[in-house]
């Protein structure tokens, strides 16, 4: 998409306003606040720019934030488990404006039309350059989930993103989905493409036999005379949530003890500022911040939470900031520290939404992206169908995109029940928009895409739902895996997130009749983690379904009946 200048943008805003898409646009833009969004005054002498979980989205996209992001136990009512008005209120964001649109699902369709798409590496590159100009020495951190999530990343084995990140000027990186390209490919990139340019760090990846380190645990830098250590934390449950056979010789885990040792070692080597670049997920980061001392900030990702301000966590050694910078290229976090006498004395943080209409495309990055896409253009742009409703994924339970995938795989496979993984990535399609093959790949581009059809007994189906439910709702974050609930097609159920494993899932019904524990049902699914699983790639199955239907009506979401969640600020009223 070509960029427009401010005058053109304001003209569109006026037109949108006249068409009833006002959303406080005038007060934001006419007063020049649109420009000031990116005029962030420099503070202090140490600066970090942070993006995470971009999921290989090189192009500007739409991304709807969740309306359901429940916090359980001690996490209830606290960031990141706040949605809609609750989030606006907690962070003092004015309803109806551009920031309210960036951080919440409120009035999504209208606001998305008004403010346009978000992200895109060419626009992100412009923002990074601007911020770097005002913040000499600033380090650009990539939290991971960068080499997966699009057609071009899958087809180039991550190479398009590797090249884009080098051009963007990433300094230090952590990882998760990267590992689904396989251990050999990751090492190839780290040892060849990244050598001398980008440090790929992970304190919590070891060889599974003798516990030897696989990557450097941290990177030491100096910025404006201040010594800095950035420690990497990979997604601790990669071999569980994703196929273990792709990284057979590596072990992960949270590794608090080793994190403490690493922090202490970095401090002993003279680091005045210690930052953890984390792919733990925000709930795990919050707990880790309370247990490990000596970390100034944990800059996190994985759970895709766009949190406007850090959580400040007290611990035995002082305090640690915990941030989370959203997903899909939608945000860039800016953390400024004032370091005096070898200590952090104060900070400023801003999570900047990347609105592609307000940031002209960087020409060099735009050229790289064009080059990446050129050989695949016709395939990417094939219009498979038109969507009448909003298609989105993010949220604790079924979003409309997964509902569509479930409807497709169940129909094609002749299944009674469908399961679709609780992935948090995937872009959003507005009503009336064509669904292209590229959009479909945004939801499905993984290295283990097979569609499966299994025979399962009722009690097996329940135990799977209980298992995944516990990965999401266990009150101890260290037992959570950071995905959303498995998306379920065909089967109605009730869910009590506060209950213990074994009792959360209730009243399972198929066609109105209770699920029989001993009866066998046909269950369609995709993304099997077991080695050797075979089946047609999910994008081919769904593409066939879409081409056949031509028009996709608004989906009817199969949401569970929630028990005990009334008044939870992680749920839209």
């Amino acid at each position, binding site marked *: 998409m070509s960029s427009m200048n401010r005058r053109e943008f304001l003209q569109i805003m006026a037109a949108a306003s006249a068409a009833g898409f006002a959303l406080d646009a005038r007060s934001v833009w006419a007063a020049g606040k649109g420009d000031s969004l990116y005029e962030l005054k420099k503070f202090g002498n140490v600066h970090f720019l942070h993006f995470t979980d971009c999921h290989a989205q090189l192009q500007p996209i739409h991304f709807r934030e969740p309306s359901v992001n429940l916090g359980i136990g001690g996490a209830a009512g606290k960031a990141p488990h706040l949605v809609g008005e609750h989030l606006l209120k907690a962070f003092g964001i004015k309803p109806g404006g551009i920031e309210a649109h960036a951080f919440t699902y409120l009035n999504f369709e209208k606001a998305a039309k008004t403010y346009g798409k978000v992200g895109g590496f060419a626009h992100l590159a412009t923002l990074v350059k601007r911020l770097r100009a005002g913040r000499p020495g600033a380090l650009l951190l990539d939290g991971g989930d960068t080499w997966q999530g699009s057609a071009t990343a899958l087809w180039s084995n991550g190479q398009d993103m590797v090249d884009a990140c080098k051009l963007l000027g990433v300094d230090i990186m952590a990882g998760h989905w990267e590992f689904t390209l396989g251990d050999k490919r990751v090492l190839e990139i780290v040892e060849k493409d990244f050598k001398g340019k980008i440090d790929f760090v992970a304190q919590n990846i070891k060889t599974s036999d003798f516990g030897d380190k696989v990557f450097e645990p941290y990177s030491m830098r100096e910025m404006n005379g201040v010594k800095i250590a950035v420690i990497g934390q990979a997604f601790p449950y990669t071999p569980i949530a994703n196929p273990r056979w792709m990284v057979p010789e590596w072990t992960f885990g949270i590794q608090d003890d080793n994190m403490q040792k690493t922090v202490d070692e970095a401090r002993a080597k003279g680091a005045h500022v210690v930052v953890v670049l984390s792919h733990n997920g925000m709930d795990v980061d919050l707990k880790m911040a309370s247990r490990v001392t000596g970390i100034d900030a944990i800059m996190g990702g994985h759970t895709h939470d766009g949190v406007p301000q850090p959580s400040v966590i007290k611990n035995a050694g002082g305090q640690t900031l915990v941030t989370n910078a959203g997903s899909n290229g939608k945000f860039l976090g800016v953390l400024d520290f004032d370091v005096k006498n070898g200590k952090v004395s104060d900070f400023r943080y801003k999570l900047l939404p990347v609105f592609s209409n307000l940031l002209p495309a960087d020409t060099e990055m735009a050229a790289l992206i064009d080059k990446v896409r050129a050989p695949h253009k016709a395939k990417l742009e094939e219009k498979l169908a038109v969507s009448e409703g909003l298609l989105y994924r993010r949220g604790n339970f079924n979003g409309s995109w997964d509902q569509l995938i479930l409807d497709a795989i169940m129909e094609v496979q002749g299944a009674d029940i469908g399961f679709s993984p609780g992935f948090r990535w995937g872009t959003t399609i507005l009503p009336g928009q064509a669904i292209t093959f590229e959009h479909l790949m945004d939801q499905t581009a993984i290295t283990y895409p097979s569609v499966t059809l299994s025979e399962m007994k009722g009690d097996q189906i329940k135990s*799977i739902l209980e298992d995944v439910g516990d990965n999401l709702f266990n009150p101890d974050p260290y037992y959570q895996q950071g995905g959303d609930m498995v998306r379920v097609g065909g089967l109605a159920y009730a869910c009590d997130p506060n209950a213990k494993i074994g009792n959360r899932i209730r009243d399972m019904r198929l066609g109105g009749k209770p699920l029989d524990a001993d009866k066998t049902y046909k269950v369609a699914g995709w993304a099997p983690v077991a080695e050797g699983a075979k089946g047609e790639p999910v994008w081919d199955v769904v593409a066939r379904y879409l081409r056949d239907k031509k028009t996709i009506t608004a989906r009817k979401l199969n949401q569970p009946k929630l028990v005990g969640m009334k008044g939870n600020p992680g749920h839209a009223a």
Partner: protein
Amino acid sequence: MEMNPARRTVLRGASSLGALSALVLAGVLKPTAVYAAEWNKAAFEAKDTAGALKGMGAAASADSKDLVLKVPDIAENGAVVPVDVLSNIPNTTSIAILVEKNPQPLCAQFDFANGALPEVAARLKMGQTSLVKAVAKADGKFYTAQKEVKVTVGGCGG
């Protein structure tokens, strides 16, 4: 990347012979320092934790901070769950590891001669989420530490 191909080859050979159950930390626990303990049939064949503890003579025990049990929060592979136990309790003469929900909970017992550092590492098989319990014996008394290890079907994350 630090590699020691020789070590790795040795280990691969060992695991192909099925010796995955207990890897005694090399150099920490010298084979000569281990008593050739007698097979405690009653304890190892007990079908529940209470029975196993009774068989060990450890029916009465107390939790101790000085017994450090390291296990993952969630097992990456239920077939080989790494367990590490270190006892800082003076005069520790044995360490046992139990997996409560295994068909026979007592998995391993290690005895130490005078002066041997009581630290052991093992890889245990777990079929389902369970408490893992370490039991140390010192001066005739028993001390315990425990933690739940979750075994999950996997997939669906992120």
